[in-house]
């Protein structure tokens, strides 16, 4: 268990490509932080620098009260879970889990006891004498977890550990991993490109885009107050609606239509207006026309896809709200409106 501190940590690969721009953040003891972003944005690079598998080319990294820039990965007191499990194919599950302990000079008895304990925690007791090739994907993932848990590290690192599993298993493992981390209280950094995983597992989310941190915040903050249009459109399914609008005399208008809501202290000019699909009400006091073209039936709720002022727009309504293709009036909740700079995409 440890505080992890990145101070302007950056990575430039030998070919000159800057995969991670200097980034700083601190992870509290026992916190579960999720690094999320599209593929190729530098998540793995950042995580691998923390693990020591990739050299840090700028800044300093502290784990606990040590600066670990030049510390060997085996001495950083970390455990890592890889996307393709990375089990040793020639070792049994028991040996796989115990390998790290063996190399730390732990006695055979202690290793066996710890392996048994980890196996029990992860439902692997029956599988201890199998080779990885005799396990299913989910079981392999649990062995990989066991290998991490047994070392009793001060920091867990996960690199997309669930991407190779099918959707059902993924949901189940997501909960198991989170519960395990809660129980053990080990500081964790979890990398994923899946925003659902990020939202459901994280204490805090770090959104990365092209090697740069876009936003750091709790899932609720990230979801409700995205710092940029990138975060707004990346987090949430369906994503936040983003439409071109103008601020005129303190009022937001789309295509010169009626006022959608107050713009607060935002100066007049073009903006991007963001509103989550569920922050919209049909009918009632609404005076903004919305052309519904498709109704997506999802059981518990419905998604209405269409256009607002000629721009694509989606509305999320509960199953009790009837809707059919055609034009209807909607009301955007004023407190849910987010305004972004039309040039930079940053929140205003």
């Amino acid at each position: 268990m440890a505080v992890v501190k990145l101070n302007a940590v950056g990575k430039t690969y030998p070919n000159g490509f800057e995969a991670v721009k200097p980034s700083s953040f601190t992870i509290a003891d026992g916190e579960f932080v999720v690094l999320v972003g599209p593929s190729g944005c530098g998540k793995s690079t950042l995580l691998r620098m923390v693990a020591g598998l990739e050299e840090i080319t700028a800044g300093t990294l502290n784990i606990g009260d040590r600066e670990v820039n030049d510390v060997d990965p085996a001495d950083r007191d970390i455990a890592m879970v890889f996307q393709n499990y990375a089990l040793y194919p020639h070792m049994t599950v028991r040996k796989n889990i115990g390998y790290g302990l063996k190399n730390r000079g732990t006695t055979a008895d202690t290793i066996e006891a710890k392996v048994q304990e980890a196996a029990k925690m992860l439902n692997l007791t029956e599988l201890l004498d199998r080779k990885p090739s005799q396990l299913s994907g989910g079981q392999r993932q649990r062995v990989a977890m066991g290998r991490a848990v047994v070392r009793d590290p001060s920091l867990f690192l996960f690199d997309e550990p669930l991407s190779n599993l099918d959707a059902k298993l993924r949901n189940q493992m997501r909960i198991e991993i989170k519960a395990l981390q809660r129980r053990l209280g080990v500081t964790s950094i979890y990398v994923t490109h899946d925003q659902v995983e990020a939202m459901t597992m994280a204490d805090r989310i770090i959104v990365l885009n092209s090697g740069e941190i876009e936003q750091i915040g709790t899932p609720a903050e990230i979801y409700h107050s995205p710092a940029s249009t990138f975060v707004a459109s990346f987090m949430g399914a369906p994503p936040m609606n983003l439409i071109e609008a103008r601020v005129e005399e303190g009022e937001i208008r789309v295509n010169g239509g009626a006022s959608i809501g107050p713009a607060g202290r935002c100066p007049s000019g073009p903006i991007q207006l963001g509103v989550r699909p569920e922050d919209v009400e049909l009918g009632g006091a609404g005076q903004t026309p919305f052309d519904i073209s498709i109704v997506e039936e999802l059981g518990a709720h419905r998604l209405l896809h269409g256009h607002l002022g000629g721009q694509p727009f989606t509305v999320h309504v509960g199953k009790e709200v009837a809707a059919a293709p055609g034009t209807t009036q909607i009301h955007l909740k004023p407190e849910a409106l987010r305004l972004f700079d039309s040039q930079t995409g940053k929140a205003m």
Partner: protein
Amino acid sequence: MKRAGFTTIWLPVALLLPQLMIIAIFFYWPAGWAVQSSFYLQDPFGFGSTFVGLENYTDLGSNSEYLRIAWFTVIYTCLVTFFSLAIALLLAVKADKVIRSARTYRTLLMWVYAIAPPVAGFMGIMFFDQRTGPITDAFQVFGWDYKLGVNYTDTATAMVIAAVWKQIPVNFIFFLSGLQSIPRSVNEAAIIDNRSSTSRFWQVTFPLLAPTTFFLLIINITYALFDTFGIIDTLLKGEPGNNPMTLVYKVYLDGFRGNDLGGSSAQSVILMVLVLILTVFQFRLIERRIHYT
């Protein structure tokens, strides 16, 4: 799946015939002939032959020169196999570290493989030559009065070095592709689990290379036993004298130089049995192949 079939038996037979004929003419016929003539004592001048039963074989068992050559062949095979595998593995591990897609390196080393055995032998002569060979000069510096073709051990050393040198590239290629097929993350998991790169190599990398190593072991034994003929022939310059040689070379010497066709045939039959055993062993191995997936 639908299986394609022939309606008559004659078409497949006709298609197979050329291949079967080649095998028959170039393998079964001479092999049968060798087995047969191993039971006869040939007149050196070609006037008939006498049936002698197993005498050619029993003679070999009591022939001290033959036993000495057999012993040399064993040592030679072990040395060539061990060093060509060990050096190739060392090079492959180093290359794998430096470049993950070691294409240029690979091609460069592959060139050596394209050299024919007699050429390798000839280059061995150049390096080890009494007057001009650079390696001879180097040995001289360390006080080793190196005499290729005169001193038994010295000639044997050149044979081993030339044979190893020629075999390293092919082993290197196999080891390198074996190393590169180990998932990067497995190596990285090991880096986190184990501080010592030496013990990582023996506990993780080497076991994962086992299938490649077993395969190469068979290939290299076969190579040292049989394919080094050209190297040996060139190094000995056709003057075997008191020099070391392998069993295959002895077959050639006795049969074509000594005109002892019966004894030579008996020797080749023994070698055939050896190949047979190696082949069976190899097939067994491939069946039980150690594969991790």
